[in-house]
C-alpha cells in the first residue's frame, strides 16, 4: 500500500472524520463511472457510494482493519459492489456481476437492528455531548479506560469509569421513560 493510503487508514483508525471526506472525494468519480455500467440510476449509485464509504470508514474505526494484500481502492470497490448486488440484484445481471467481482471477500452490509438497538440509537442522540463522547470512545472505538484518560482531559481512570457509568444509566433511563410513555 502506498504511503498516502496508509496515512488515510491511520486517520480513519483514529475516527478522524476529515479522512472520511478525503476518501469520499478521492474515489467518488471513479466508483460512479464504474457503477454506471450496471445501468442503475445516478442517484441510486450516489446513495450506494455514500453508504459504502461510511461502512468502510466504520470498519476501520471499530475493527481497526489493516489492509495486507489489497489497496484501499480495492477494499472500497469490494464493499460497494457487494452493496449494489444486495440492493439491486433484480436489476443487475447476476452472472456478469458474479464473474466480475469476488464479492464474498468483503464484509456484508450491516444486519438490521433489533428494537432495543433502535431505541438505544434514537436516544443516544438526545444525551449530552460529553456522554455521547465517552460512550463512543469506549463502545464504538473500543478504547480502554486508560486510553480514554490519555486521549481526553479526564482527570483519572475512576473519573472516566464513573462518568461512563452515569451516562449509560441515563441512556437506559431515557429508554425506560420512553417505553412507558408510548
Amino acid at each position, binding site marked *: 500500500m502506498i504511503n498516502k493510503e496508509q496515512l488515510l487508514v491511520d486517520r480513519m483508525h483514529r475516527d478522524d472524520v476529515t479522512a*472520511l471526506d478525503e476518501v469520499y472525494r478521492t474515489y467518488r468519480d471513479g466508483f460512479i463511472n464504474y457503477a454506471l455500467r450496471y445501468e442503475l440510476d445516478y442517484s441510486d449509485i*450516489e446513495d450506494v457510494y455514500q453508504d459504502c464509504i461510511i461502512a468502510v470508514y466504520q470498519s476501520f474505526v471499530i475493527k481497526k482493519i489493516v489492509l495486507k494484500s489489497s489497496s484501499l481502492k480495492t477494499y472500497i470497490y469490494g464493499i460497494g459492489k457487494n452493496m449494489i448486488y444486495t440492493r439491486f440484484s433484480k436489476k443487475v445481471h447476476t452472472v456478469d456481476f458474479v464473474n466480475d467481482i469476488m464479492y464474498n471477500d468483503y464484509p456484508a452490509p450491516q444486519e438490521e437492528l433489533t428494537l432495543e438497538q*433502535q*431505541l*438505544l*440509537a434514537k436516544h443516544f442522540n438526545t444525551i449530552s*455531548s*460529553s456522554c455521547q463522547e465517552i460512550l463512543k470512545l469506549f463502545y464504538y472505538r473500543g478504547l480502554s479506560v486508560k486510553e480514554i484518560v490519555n486521549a481526553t482531559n479526564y482527570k483519572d481512570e475512576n473519573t472516566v469509569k464513573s462518568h461512563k457509568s452515569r451516562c449509560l444509566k441515563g441512556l437506559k433511563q431515557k429508554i425506560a421513560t420512553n417505553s412507558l410513555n408510548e
Partner: protein
Amino acid sequence: MNREELIQAYVHGTLKDADVADLKRQMELDKSLLADMREYENIQKAIREADRQMLKKRLQAAEDLGEEQSTAGSEQTTAIKQLRPYLLPLAAACIIGIVLMSKNFYFSSPNDSSVLYDQYYTTYPNTLLPVTRSNDVESKNMEAFVAYEANEFEKAAGLFKEYLNLEEDPDVEFYYAMSLINSGNEDKALPLLNELHEATTVYLPQAYWYAALIELKNEKTKNAQALIDSLLHLDVEFKYKEAVQLKKDLNEANR
C-alpha cells in the same frame, strides 16, 4: 485482562483465536457474562447506527454544497470579468489601506492588553455538532450551531440558552460562552467559562484560553496570567505555542 476488557476485545475482533474459544466456553457457564457481552454489542451497534446517520447527513451536505458551488462558480467568473476595470483602482486602494493598517498595528505598543487580545483572539470553530444545511432542523441545539456557523452569534446565544435550560451540557455551555464573546458580551461569558474550569468538558483548555483573553481585555493581567498557567499546566496541544508566547508578552509588559 479484566472482564470488561475481554468483552471489548472480543467485540472489536482483537482477541486471539484461543482466547475467543475460551471466552465462548465461559459464556456457556456464566450467563451474566453472556448478558454483559450482549449489552456491549447492543450499545456498540446503536452508536454505530447513530454515527452512520450523522455521517450520511455529512456526505449528503457535501454533495449539495458541491452542486451549489459548481453552479455559483460559473456565475461568479462572469461577474469578475465584467467588473475587472473597476477592480484595479479598488485593489490598489485596498493594498495601500492594508499596508497602512499593518504599520499602525506594528508601531502600536505591543504591551497594550487590547492589542494582545486582538492579536490572539480567533473565533473557536464548531467541533461539536456537524451542521447539515437542510430545512430539517431537528433540535434547538442543532439550530444554535447552524446560527453559530453562520456567524449569527446573538441568535446562537439565545438558542444555546434555551437548550441549556432543558439540558445540562458543559460542552454546549462552552459554545454559549463563545457566542456571548462574539456578540460583545464578554462580561457574561467570563463567569460561564470560569464555571467550566470545574466541569467535565472536552473544552477545558479552550475555557482557560478564552477566559484568559477576556481578562486580558479587561486589563486584569494577573488573572490572565493565572489562567494561562492553568492551561499550560494541562500540558495539551491546544494553543500551546500561543500560550507560551502570550505568557512571555505578559511578563515583558509587567517589567
